[in-house]
């Protein structure tokens, strides 16, 4: 079936099987491998992207369900060479080690900050409960999100 999706602001058309998952469309058909896939069972959050500005686990969304929607992936966060504040602060605060969870963390955090410009550490922890990190122990991730929120308020 043919579907139209706007990915990172660019309108694109794909010919996919109805059973194609959004994460596979993004990685295999659109060539955007920044969206990771790990558990494939809506647990880990590595595959998180924004679908019409809402964080979703793209391993549990059919590409067909995204017909006509706007998708934002990690590739759409930076503005040219200029990193998004979340990217900058994950770097600055050592919010990543292996980096596997990072794209998903950043997109979930982006929705959090969009609805709560000044989140407490507890609100941040609650907000990223659907994203699992096997490396950092989360503290630096919370610090990075908090610092990014502060930078975005300035």
């Amino acid at each position, binding site marked *: 079936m043919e579907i139209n999706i706007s990915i990172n602001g660019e309108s694109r058309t794909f010919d996919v099987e*109805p059973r194609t998952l959004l994460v596979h469309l993004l990685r295999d058909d659109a060539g955007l491998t920044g969206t990771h896939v790990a558990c494939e069972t809506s647990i880990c959050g590595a595959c998180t992207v924004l679908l019409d500005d809402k*964080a979703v686990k793209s391993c*549990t*969304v059919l590409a067909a369900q995204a*017909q006509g929607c706007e998708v934002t992936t990690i590739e759409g966060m930076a503005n040219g060479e200029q990193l998004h504040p979340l990217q900058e602060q994950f770097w600055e605060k050592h919010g990543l080690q292996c980096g596997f969870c990072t794209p998903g963390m950043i997109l979930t955090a982006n929705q*959090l900050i969009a609805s709560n410009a000044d989140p407490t550490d507890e609100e941040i922890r609650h907000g990223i409960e*659907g994203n699992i990190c096997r490396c950092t122990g989360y503290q630096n991730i919370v610090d990075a999100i908090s610092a990014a929120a502060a930078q975005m308020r300035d």
Partner: protein
Amino acid sequence: MIPASFDYVRPQSLEDALARLGEHGDDARVLAGGHSLLPVMKARLADPGVLVDIAGIESLSGISESEDGITIGAMTTHAEIEASASVQGRCRSLAEAAAAIGDVQVRNRGTLGGSLAHADPAADYPAVILAANAEITVAGADGERVIAADDFFTGTYETALGAGEIITSVRIRASAARGSSAYLKAAQQASGFAVCGVAARVALDADGAVERIRVGVTGVAATAYRATSVEDALTGAAPSAESIRKAAATAGEGVDALDDFYAGADFRRHLAGVYAARAIGKAWIRAAGE
């Protein structure tokens, strides 16, 4: 993990969706948010030939408030319910149950109607639906009908929904003037599903005695149930922390409880009593104070 092949249709009207379901019979499944059905299909535990995606039907989404209650479209997401001032004001336990589901991403996609139709025995909503005496409106080839909460959940993953029917909305009467509700759960640590979830809805009379109370329990048995022994014990009297604790202790009595790796049957029955006491206590304090 990719589902087996299927055909996908996305009707724009309820009539068209019902026609598609009629046309394909048992081979078709309704796709709402997909957060129960797609995982099952990915695990190849279900392989419908046709998915009828109802996301394009606008009339199925949204929350409307009337004098005496709220009506929530079946395609309304958990996130929308959690954030809705109408739901928080009219049925606080429903907002609390929605907020307790999964995580942010799951709540952004999962829907009320989808969750009810799936009828997972550890889902959060059934406890609230039973306690709130909600009415579930479903549409089928022969038109609409309303199913009472008490008749809706018939077994594990089984409901009173007939073949070819779609849930369109859920109606909940507002809490009484001196009434309120609460939902609390013991969550399974990894999945977040309820090992035991209890919703209590209490209405007090002018003297502070319990005029009506309903208690719904999920996660404990093969299907959500009402703790009628608790309701009966508390109706008509002015509650106290002690009387609530004593009455609530029977919430799991005689229940054929689930018994698994996470919680044995005895522990689940025990939790039912503990969480019933907490939920009733919370609803009572809110009712007395609001």
